[in-house]
């Protein structure tokens, strides 16, 4: 297996009484971005959570480099980062502390890399402030800094542009672009289209 590769084979997921995912199939190779669209409640978030192994599908498999991720979830998790609806930040820690803990649990973070990431998302001026004092858009930027810090091949993004201004949305576009250029892959559930700067974009439409 020379390349990182994600294959999703006919996922079926039920939530209570609802058949949320009805045989979703796709695959992602190095340098590819898949944009998942669909109306509210069509299962975009569920798809991301099922792919990363938080939810357990009734049928179907997720393969990473040709192997079922269920056989070794930890290895798969080392290769991905998942960004949910809400940035995973503690209100009572500063932006910088949050990043240090969040990403530090995954892998070692150098001080310089941390500052670079904060600089990159334009968070340097306010990175000492407690997250509870930050706006929703600023929090989203901190989460993006975490994304930039975690050098992993697979990004799973749930509505990455929510709450961001135009400039912030461009930032998401360029971060994704860099990730693809590195040979990484991105799976993004979006309501609003990803910025046009993202090339090699493929689409997956989920029905309601």
């Amino acid at each position: 297996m020379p390349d990182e590769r994600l294959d999703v084979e006919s996922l079926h997921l039920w939530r209570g009484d609802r058949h949320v995912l009805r045989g979703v199939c796709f695959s992602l190779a190095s340098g590819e971005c898949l944009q998942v669209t669909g109306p509210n409640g069509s299962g975009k978030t569920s798809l991301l959570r099922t792919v990363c192994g938080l939810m357990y599908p009734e049928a179907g498999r997720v393969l990473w480099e040709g192997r079922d991720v269920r056989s070794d979830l930890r290895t798969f998790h080392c290769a991905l980062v998942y960004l949910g609806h809400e940035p995973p930040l503690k209100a009572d820690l500063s932006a910088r502390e949050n990043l240090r803990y969040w990403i530090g649990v995954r892998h070692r973070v150098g001080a310089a890399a941390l500052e670079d990431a904060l600089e990159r998302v334009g968070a340097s001026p306010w990175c000492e402030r407690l997250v509870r004092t930050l706006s929703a858009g600023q929090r989203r930027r901190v989460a993006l800094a975490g994304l930039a810090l975690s050098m992993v091949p697979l990004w799973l993004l749930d509505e990455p542009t929510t709450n961001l201004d135009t400039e912030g949305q461009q930032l998401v576009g360029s971060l994704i672009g860099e990730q693809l250029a590195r040979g990484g892959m991105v799976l993004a559930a979006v309501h609003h289209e990803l910025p046009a700067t993202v090339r090699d974009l493929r689409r997956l439409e989920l029905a309601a």
Partner: protein
Amino acid sequence: MTWTWFHRLGSPPYVYALAARLTPWFAWPAALLIIGGLWGGLVLAPPDYQQGDGFRIIYVHAPSAWMSLMVYTTMAVAAAVGLIWRIKVAHAVAASCAPIGASFTFAALVTGALWGEPMWGTYWEWDPRLTSELILLFLYLGYMGLRAGLEDTQRADRASAVLAVVGVVNVPIIHYSVTWWNSLHQAPSVMRLAKPTMAASMLVPLLLMLLGFTLFFGAVLLVRLRGEVLNRERSASWIREIVNA
């Protein structure tokens, strides 16, 4: 070959049909055994030389206490199977067990207290067996409370399964600690179950009752199991046949 029956036990329609077919095979022998045990225990068995006719409570107390533990163990084993192999039917079994076990634990407590009054002169004695039984009741209530608190059936199944397994690991520890605690504070209890010298005329009705209660548990479990299996199925066409039948 030998595994096919095991796999079929994971298939809801098969289990539903099997449970329906098996129920009478448990229910009728259970009824006969319990009636026989009652007759033997209340009429045929002679009064105890120390406790007189008061000892006859044993024929309902001991089977209830046996049920409380046996059902909990069954529940925990089913829960563990469901948790490890993600078998829905196993979770359905575990969920069916809890109310049955809780009701008999309650019965064991009440009959124990009613036995205690003539024997100890008080309804409630902090006897290790009764105390453990009381805690077991709390474990059942906790299990059912957790199930009730979680709305999503799948989550309720898995979370309550963890609790059942944790509980079954704890039951021996709790019993040991309560016995240890009791030995510090009072003389050994007066109540002695299953004396080795128990006469056959006393023992046989007890065995009949124990077996009868166990089969009764099987029958009730099978009825409840059908309901729980239905609750966990969503679109299968076999449900249509059952519901419209």
